[in-house]
């Protein structure tokens, strides 16, 4: 691993730019974005389609290299890492839930959660117990041995949340986790997610186009045309934004 830079944030980006070359010329999908997320802070990254939020998420998840800028996770810069280093980082320090196809279909709920510990060579008795407890807390105590195909979309998302948290990552990312859920389940999932982020002191980022979900976050980052155009951290303003999504 590279030398860490001291920072109070779990995640800090500095002037991140991502440029794509297209037939019609270069396009800046992310344009000079700098953000900070502290441990225990849950942040929403919102914006219309094409605003660059998914690209930003991919960069934060160490799945995509930025064209320039710094991404410091626990003080380590992701931008300069090799592919192997980024794979190791994703396994050790990042938890991820996706929009769909979240789980490995041939592993049961508890096996999916334990997989993160297995990949990190940390699957012991205590880890197995923690996986079961976490699933039970997420209301899946009766579904431990169910395969993903035997669970609803909401239940699968909750298993994915457990998997994203089980290995105590520094950063937890969620990409449109409510896209395939009805409103009631969507609120349940994000509320649970937010609760665990706060309780376990992880840095959490949710990418969503559904402003109603902002009700559970501490800060809202709005992107448009690749730029970070607005940061909302006042509770009243966040609630106002969330209500605007319900209209």
């Amino acid at each position, binding site marked *: 691993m590279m030398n860490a830079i001291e920072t109070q944030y779990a995640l800090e980006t500095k002037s991140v730019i991502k440029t794509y070359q297209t037939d019609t010329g270069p396009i800046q999908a992310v344009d000079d974005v700098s953000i900070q997320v502290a441990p225990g802070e849950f942040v929403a990254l919102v914006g219309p389609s094409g605003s660059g939020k998914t690209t930003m998420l991919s960069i934060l998840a160490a799945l995509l290299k930025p064209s320039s800028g710094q991404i410091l996770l626990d003080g380590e810069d992701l931008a300069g890492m090799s592919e192997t280093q980024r794979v190791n980082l994703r396994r050790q320090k990042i938890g991820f839930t996706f929009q769909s196809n979240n789980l*490995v279909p*041939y592993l049961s709920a508890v096996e999916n959660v334990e997989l993160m510990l297995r990949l990190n060579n940390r699957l012991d008795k205590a880890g197995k117990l923690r996986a079961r407890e976490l699933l039970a807390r997420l209301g899946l105590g009766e579904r431990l041995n169910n395969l993903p195909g035997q669970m609803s979309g909401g239940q699968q998302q909750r298993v994915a949340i457990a998997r994203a948290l089980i290995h105590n990552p520094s950063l937890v990312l969620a990409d449109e986790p409510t896209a395939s859920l009805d409103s009631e389940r969507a609120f349940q999932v994000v509320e649970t997610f937010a609760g665990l982020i706060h309780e376990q002191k992880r840095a959490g980022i949710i990418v969503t186009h559904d402003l109603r979900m902002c009700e559970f976050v501490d800060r809202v980052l709005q992107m448009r045309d690749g730029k970070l155009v607005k940061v909302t951290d006042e509770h009243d303003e966040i609630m106002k934004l969330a209500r605007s999504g319900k209209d």
Partner: protein
Amino acid sequence: MTQLFTVSSYLAVKEIWRNLGRFLLVSLVIALITLLVLFIAALGEGLGNGNREYISKLDAQLIVYQAKSDLLVGASRLGYDRLAAVQRIKGVADAGMLGTANATIILPGNNAAPLKVSLMGVAPGHPGEPKVVTGRQLGSGLTREVILDRSTALRSKLVVGDTLTIRTTQGTTDKFFDLRVVGISDGQQYSLQPTIFLPLGTWDRVRPKSEAEINSTDLVGNVIIVKLNDPTEAALVESRIKGQINNVETASLDQAIQALPGYTAQQSTLNTQGGFTLFIGILVIGGFFQIQTLQKVPQIGVLKAIGTSNPAVAAASVIQIVVITIIGVAIGAVLSFLFSLTFPPTVPIVFNGQTSAIAIIALLLIGPLGGLVSIRYAVRIEPLKALGLSS
């Protein structure tokens, strides 16, 4: 490394276990391919054996033919003067004349079908006469004795001490001769037929003859079987024979086998069939795993996104392919063995250990070979694209 193997084998085995039906189906396809390949190999071995068994078991190193006979036993004619000349060559330990013909054994009982056999005239006590495993060797001269090879004994149910009747055509007349079974040798088939061995003099008396040959008194065989003092000097002795005896050509046993009528064509046909079956196996297995990998793109994307390394993904695929192939080949081998028990001795199927082992090794390799493309594809899957996160 251990961690990589642990994770890979865990993922591979879990997937197989939770999708048993699908994977078992592929194993069964591999089992059928195994069955086919092993039977083609056994058929090749059986047919080849039926052709070459007698020659390959000869306690000799060289065969002398008439010149320009193209190493065809049936086309070669050699008299006793040549045998005496060969025996005088330096380096020759012993030599024996061999005559070949065909005959029909008339088996007792009204319903018993006649048994066509190769009728071999050999010099008792000299190269060419097979060793008996039951009974005794042939007596010399014109004794009406016969040694049966194992397949003849099995099919005719004759035992040592029995008398058999053979039918041959001499001129335009069918002739019947009684011969006493004095010994039974191991398998000594020649020309894909069960074989019986007689003293050369007796053979000449009972063999099929043209009208012109009936009254001939010259004893003529087909080839001379030569045993050397030092088998490593075969080339030297061959050159001596060709240099000192007119109108002959020589061949090693291997050359003689390759020159048997239809032998090379038959073996290459069966080898080609076996090769094509293996090739089809590679395509079938490759196709299955490629389709499976295409279906698993999002799943592999998730695995990579959460930190599973490419070597682990590749190793999981390899382990899966190897396990499925081993199961398939094992089922196929057991099925082949069980089927082989149901075949009568007339079917030329021989499961030779070496040939079967080569076929099984080839079959075990077709899985990983067929899966190479899918493994490469799995390793190249980009989590961003697989998860629909790419712009």
